């Protein structure tokens, strides 16, 4: 049956194919070809750990491993008419599994060439509060805003920091749109002076 802990136990192992089992599988597959659903279910459940061990050698991510196993099972289902019960089942199954895993690795390689992996680093640096350099600037900006007259500071907060439209900001602050425009304009001029060093 499919339990995730099995993954860790068999990961990296070659999982040799026992001969007795091969014969069992061969018989089950022959019955499945004749339409015996129970035999088919037993066969698929029995080969799944073996396939999982195979897939674990190619993929590290457990969900990739499970994806690969399902891919192999679907291919096995699609080409089940090609199995000849007079021949061993193992090489037939291994050939399908190997082919499917190679295809997946190729496809994954193509996809990875177009993508950048998202790592914890990206998240840390994108988060402003975690970035030391940005923190310094935030302190400076906060200090500069504190120096502004209260109407200008309010206008900046509403229109530039909270990102409201002039209309919304006008409604929120109770001032006219024209007054807001002037206040914002003056606030920006003050800030510019502050950061260029000419402000007090």
């Amino acid at each position, binding site marked *: *049956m*499919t339990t995730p802990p099995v993954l860790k136990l068999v990961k990296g192992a070659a999982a040799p194919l026992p001969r007795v089992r091969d014969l069992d599988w061969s018989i089950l597959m022959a019955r*499945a*070809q*004749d*339409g*015996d*659903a*129970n035999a*088919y*279910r037993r066969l*698929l*459940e029995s080969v*799944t750990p073996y396939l999982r061990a195979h897939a674990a050698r190619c993929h590290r991510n457990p*969900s990739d491993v*499970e*994806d690969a*196993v*399902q*891919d192999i*099972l*679907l*291919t096995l*289902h*699609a*080409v*089940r*008419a*090609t*199995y*000849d*019960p007079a*021949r*061993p089942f193992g*090489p*037939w*199954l*291994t*050939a*399908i599994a190997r*082919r499917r895993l190679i*295809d997946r690795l190729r496809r994954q390689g193509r996809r990875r060439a177009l993508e950048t992996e998202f790592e914890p680093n990206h998240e840390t640096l994108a988060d402003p509060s975690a970035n030391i350099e940005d923190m310094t600037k935030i302190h400076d900006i906060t200090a500069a805003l504190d120096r502004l007259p209260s109407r200008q500071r309010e206008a900046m907060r509403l229109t530039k920091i909270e990102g409201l439209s002039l209309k919304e900001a006008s409604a929120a602050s109770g001032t006219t749109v024209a007054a807001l425009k002037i206040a914002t304009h003056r606030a920006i001029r003050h800030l510019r002076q502050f950061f260029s060093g000419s402000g007090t």
Partner: protein
Amino acid sequence: MIPTDDLISALAANLRPVRRLRPPLLRATGFLLLAALILTMIAAAHGWRPGLLVRLAEIRFALSLAGALFTGVLAAVAAFLVSLPGRSRRWLWLPFPALALWLSSIGYQCWRFWTPMVPGGAPPGETASCIATLVLTSLPLSLALALMLRHAASFNPGPVILAASLSVAGITASALTLFHPLDASVEILMFNLGTGSLIVLLGGAINLFVSSRLEIPE
């Protein structure tokens, strides 16, 4: 992704009995019999090339024909064997000796016949009839192989398509040699390679289609 157990239950629940494929050599024989039938029908309708028996006595002509014919036969056998999971890929080497024989004689004939053919060219009627032979031979054979080897699409299509197109090319070239006085020239090669490439492209498209259908929706 659905749980693997659920997938297994779904596959078992929708299981339908399948007819096992017959042994690959038997299936290859069936395909070659179809090819023989097509060649016989063209022979009956069109007739052999003028002076065939005399040309057959020439060792180089006989080797070229045998090379093309054996390439067709052995590549078909290789295609049927390699299309099955678990069979050795080394079977792909099977048609190579015949192919080498065929290609070496084509090289010689290109060098010898191509230049004199350029100024006058082949008569238009002969060219049309030649193209008809090409189409009548390669099209049904390609379709038959595509149908008989379709199970390889979801397993390992590349080498199978390669071997199958080589087989069709060999048989088609043999047909041309048997029915038309135009010896192996560049146009035959181009047509054969064109047929092969078309099959490879179609096969690639089918493969993409099949594998994208096999993708499990997340």
